[in-house]
């Protein structure tokens, strides 16, 4: 059983530090400018945001598929050997596949350790950097995005913004408790700057852009 949040010992023990820090910050007045407002006229938009999005996503190691209907996605997935051979697939996009892992039956995220694939739903795309916003409320378990060997995201190609300013405006109020921009598969270049895809998260990312 977890302890009561409002009465935990740590919070009480550190109130004197809180006061000391706040006193120090409030006792010395520092002049600063007004909070600036970003001028939209300064920001670059793309002639063809979809094309730019796709080229950025390819550049960061993602694979982009423009599809007209769910059956196309199924055909593409089944042609991918690691999908055809996958034992455990969780899908949050039933139009494409039902998968074979019933997420609603899972309580402990650790039991998703052997997940091969997740098919997730993206909300919208960002043209400038190939990122896709995923609302955490679509995920019964947050780890579904990070633990599978492979990840596919389905997103409508009409849902696209030019840059991050529009992206945050589009999100509006941040989701409680989790939201994420995903851009390409998990990667690292920590060994002599050699890019390796599939560090801890997914080894490859398939993005299906529906009409």
């Amino acid at each position, binding site marked *: 059983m977890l302890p009561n949040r409002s009465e935990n010992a740590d919070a009480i023990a550190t109130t004197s530090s809180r006061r000391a820090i706040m006193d120090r910050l409030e006792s010395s007045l520092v002049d600063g400018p007004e909070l600036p407002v970003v001028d939209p006229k300064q920001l670059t938009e793309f002639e063809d945001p979809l094309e730019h999005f796709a080229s950025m996503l390819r550049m960061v190691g993602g694979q982009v598929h423009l599809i007209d209907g769910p059956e196309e996605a199924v055909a593409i997935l089944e042609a991918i050997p690691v999908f055809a051979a996958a034992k455990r697939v969780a899908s949050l996009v039933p139009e494409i596949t039902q998968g074979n892992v019933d997420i609603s039956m899972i309580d402990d995220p650790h039991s998703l350790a052997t997940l091969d694939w997740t098919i997730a739903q993206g909300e919208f795309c960002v043209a400038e950097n190939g990122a896709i916003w995923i609302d955490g409320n679509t995920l019964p378990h947050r780890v579904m995005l990070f633990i599978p060997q492979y990840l596919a995201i389905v997103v409508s190609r009409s849902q696209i913004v030019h840059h991050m300013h529009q992206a945050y405006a589009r999100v509006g109020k941040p989701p*409680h408790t989790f939201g994420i921009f995903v851009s390409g598969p998990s*990667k690292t270049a920590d060994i002599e700057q050699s890019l390796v895809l599939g560090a801890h998260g997914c080894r490859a990312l398939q993005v299906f852009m529906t009409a």
Partner: protein
Amino acid sequence: MKLPIVDHPTAAHDYIADDERSQWHDKALWFIRSKRDKQAHDVPEWEYLRTVASQIKTHTIANLGRYLAEFEKNATALGAIVHWAADGDEHNAIVLGILRRHETHRIVKSKSMLTEECGLNHYLENNGIDVVDTDLGERIVQLREETPSHIVLPAIHIKKEEVGETFHEHLGTDKGASDPQYLTEAARGHLRGKFLSGEVGITGVNFAIAETGGFVVCTNEGNADLGVSLPPVHIACMGIEKLVPRFEDLAVFTRLLARSATGQPITSYTSHFHGPRDQNSELHIVLVDNGRSRLRESKAFRDALHCIRCGACMNTCPVYRRSGGHSYQATVPGPIGSILSPIRDAKNYKSLPFACSLCGSCTDVCPVKIPLHHQLLAWRKELVGKRLVSFGKRLSMKGASVLFCYPILFATAGKIGRTGLKWAPRWMTHNRFNKWTIARELPEPPAESFRAWYHRNRKG
């Protein structure tokens, strides 16, 4: 504990002595600098974004108390538990307290320069906690019992053959293997087990948002997300300067951060945490001062609090690139580290502001416009004022000042120099007392001075 005084030239000596390695290191960082340039040039509004970012940071630091209170209120309303730590020791004690209450023995940790600054790993290990750094670079460094040499690329100083040896010893990879793909795959397998057995996940914070009470963590590997999506407790540790006022401000900073850091348009994962995962989970946020509120009071160095820890100033610095991050013997090396470290302890880190040619490249690439080389120069002035500069250097500066004050003296000294250079034997200039000539030749003396030339050609 009394720390040894860091003498940058001495600490860098061995690294530079290995000429081949020094050049390899230089090239690796320049490669990243070039990638950064390409990304920056692809964004026409780059300079505009830097200006806005700098204004947001200046505004936030000026009103830091107000924004911290707002952040605390909103984060608490979301169900997070906010802790305040005056220094590194208190931060470590708070984290240990949380782990003890949950009877935790194993934690997984993603990269956090703040926890490095506080020495959290050693503290926890000394208290019987098994700490696993999950960022690949940090794991390599941890297995080798070293410290990161760069804030974004912790293992940039290590060659793949050396990683291979370390992994052979600790992870049982094939002897002599050095293929990054193979080694990364081995680390993936090894760390999967650690992730699954981690009882608490600890992360740093890239940006915290006052208006929403949430925070953002950026990684490429996905290690932070994997680390906190499995166990029920997430502890996020952040310096109090990591705040931004509004949710929309994240647009400015996420556009600048990865482009400046590694030359990517954005990190693979940019995660936004607002409150604990569910009713059965806990989210702790530890706000750490550790000298930041004091730094805020310094007009000369306040702007250093703008730093978003992208590492661009290191990648571009001609001194850092050749001497390696460990020569700074500080958590944050490079130009920004040479400003921050002496604030912590001026005497201990007095040599760092001199590990700089004042070329200004760091200032040019800084995404939040910290006037880095101006601050390094200001530090030198400060150190001279504190009499922390060697007697020889102080004396020669005094001498130079006299020389430049009296034109006749200057002209005479020039004459002596021109004549002397022509006739003086080599041992007079190239000896162990003159450090300047260790790797340099003196210039050919000119036939006449500019003053003489001017008199002959213009004045007459």
